[in-house]
């Protein structure tokens, strides 16, 4: 190629290269910008109500009654915590054992069937879970325990447990698959049975993965809105028993936003609930990352775990 002819085209090509590099960089920064934007927007719109109500009365006030201008979100906070803990207590053991079954004992064909089932469970829209829970589970609870209404904490816990199951299974399965085979072989060679090996060696070796699954499950359960709105009774009660109709942080926003008038303290307080929910989830994410990091470091030094 002649140098005289190629130099202008090379210049345009270099310019194109630079523009594209910049464009890709901007695409990458978009995610960062979105996170910052969401953060700032939530803080700006969530703080005024908290400042007006006061942080302590807002977080620990026991009554939520927009008519009486009382905005205490303790009922929602406790309901969210109770719902998530219940879902984890119920969903994690089942998910964990399923993961063990999948990675250590199931025949290949059966494992692939179960894996598909897990994927499909993960793909079913949350509102569909809510609908089935509302029509099947709620009347079921009502009949079994002889209550006036079956909608309440227990129904929400069961629905949430089913919904966090897929995430727990897939995280725990990955963690179990990463346990070095030598550990298991050593255990078997020492005379342990297969189940003893799995429960005393493989699971403890994958414990940080298990912890990750738990934290992930909590995050999912706390953030879920549309499934629990249909089954939880949606009354701002303190969760006294398993059957109390409750309202969660998420469902408070979803159910009240449409009738809270624009500019009212009520609406502002709903924004504040959004902020609290966001901070809650961010805290959980930080925990999750901490677990993932210990997982990686312990993998690098196999002698320690």
């Amino acid at each position, binding site marked *: 190629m002649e140098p005289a002819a190629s130099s202008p085209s090379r210049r345009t090509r*270099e310019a*194109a*290269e630079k523009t*594209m*590099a910049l*464009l*890709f960089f901007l*695409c*990458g920064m*978009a*995610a*960062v910008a*979105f996170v910052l*934007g*969401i953060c700032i927007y939530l803080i700006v*719109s969530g703080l005024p109500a908290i400042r007006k109500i006061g942080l302590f009365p807002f977080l620990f006030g026991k009554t939520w009654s927009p008519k009486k201008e009382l905005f205490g979100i303790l009922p929602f906070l406790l309901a969210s915590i109770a719902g998530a803990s219940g879902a984890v207590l119920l969903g994690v053991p*089942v998910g964990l*054992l*399923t993961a*063990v*079954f*999948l990675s250590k*004992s*199931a025949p290949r064909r059966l494992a692939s*069937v*179960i894996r598909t*089932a897990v*994927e*499909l*469970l993960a*793909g*079913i*829209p*949350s*509102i*569909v879970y*809510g*609908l*089935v829970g509302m*029509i099947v589970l709620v009347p079921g609870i009502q009949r079994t325990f002889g209550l006036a209404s079956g909608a309440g904490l227990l129904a929400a816990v069961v629905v949430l447990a089913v919904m966090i*199951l897929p995430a727990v299974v897939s995280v725990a399965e990955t963690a179990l698959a990463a346990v070095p085979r030598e550990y298991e072989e050593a255990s078997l060679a020492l005379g342990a*049975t297969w*189940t003893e090996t799995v*429960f005393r060696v493989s699971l403890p070796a994958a414990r940080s993965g298990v912890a990750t699954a738990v934290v992930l499950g909590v995050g999912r359960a706390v*953030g879920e809105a*549309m499934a629990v*709105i*249909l089954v939880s009774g949606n009354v701002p009660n303190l969760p006294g028993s398993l059957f109390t109709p409750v309202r969660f942080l*998420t469902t408070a*926003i*979803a159910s009240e*936003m*449409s009738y809270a008038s624009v500019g009212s303290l009520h609406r502002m307080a709903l*924004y504040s609930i*959004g902020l609290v*929910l966001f901070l809650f*989830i961010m805290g*959980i*994410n930080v925990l*999750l990352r901490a677990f993932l990091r210990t997982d990686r470091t312990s993998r690098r030094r196999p002698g320690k775990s």
Partner: protein
Amino acid sequence: MDKRLSPARRRLDLALRGLLLLCGGLVCALLAFLLGYLLWRGLPFVSWTLLSTQSSMLQGAVGILPHIASTLYVVFTSLVLALPLGVGAAVYLTEYASSRRLAHLMEFAAETLAGIPSIVFGLVGMLFFAQRLGAGVLAGSLTLAVMILPILIRTTQESLKTVPQTYREGAMGLGAGKWRTIRTVVLPSAADGILTGCILAVGRVAGESAALLFTAGFGTVLLSYWEALRNSSATLTVALYLYANERGDMDTAFAIATILAILTLLLNLLAKLAGRRLKR
């Protein structure tokens, strides 16, 4: 099993094996029950009139065509908005990023986005998009575009990583610049992975409800695409919520749920097929 084991150990072994099988079975049973129940309860109400008309209070008729349309509008718009951004970000992360700290920051941001509950997206989308543009398909799609961005980034990144380094070296060796290498060699060989990401994103959008309540709105009138962009229109999921919670019309609610479940099945199948092609 070894006959020399003590009876207690053998019993424990058997019990635990049984428990594992039970849990695996439970997961399958749950899915079978869900799908079976939905089909049994909802399929009889899925009729051509339901699918092809809109609801009318005057005639007491129920039709979900407007919701099917707005679901398609939202899926299309959010994907068009998010796909270039997601692929671009993934290309930057795998091909360009020279500063590790910056790449970590971007990956952290994407992970954080993935963890934010959809109701929070809905809240911010309402404050930021819907108050400026009015509740409608555009505001809803902008909100969902941010929500599906992490899915697109992650799947694209994973498939870009599987493109052999030698391809890039070959293209560079022939005198292609970096952008030309990406355009002609890297992206085409990662196309299947990007497609999988799109299918996953479509599933997420089609099944989303909390983020759309206050951004896309509750409208039940059939609108053309351009009208719908700025006018309230309920997607299938939001319509399901309306019929179940506000109107108490469970038959229609279950019909919509059945359609959504079938859609999930189909998308899952498609993603599997795309994934299999990817492996080849």
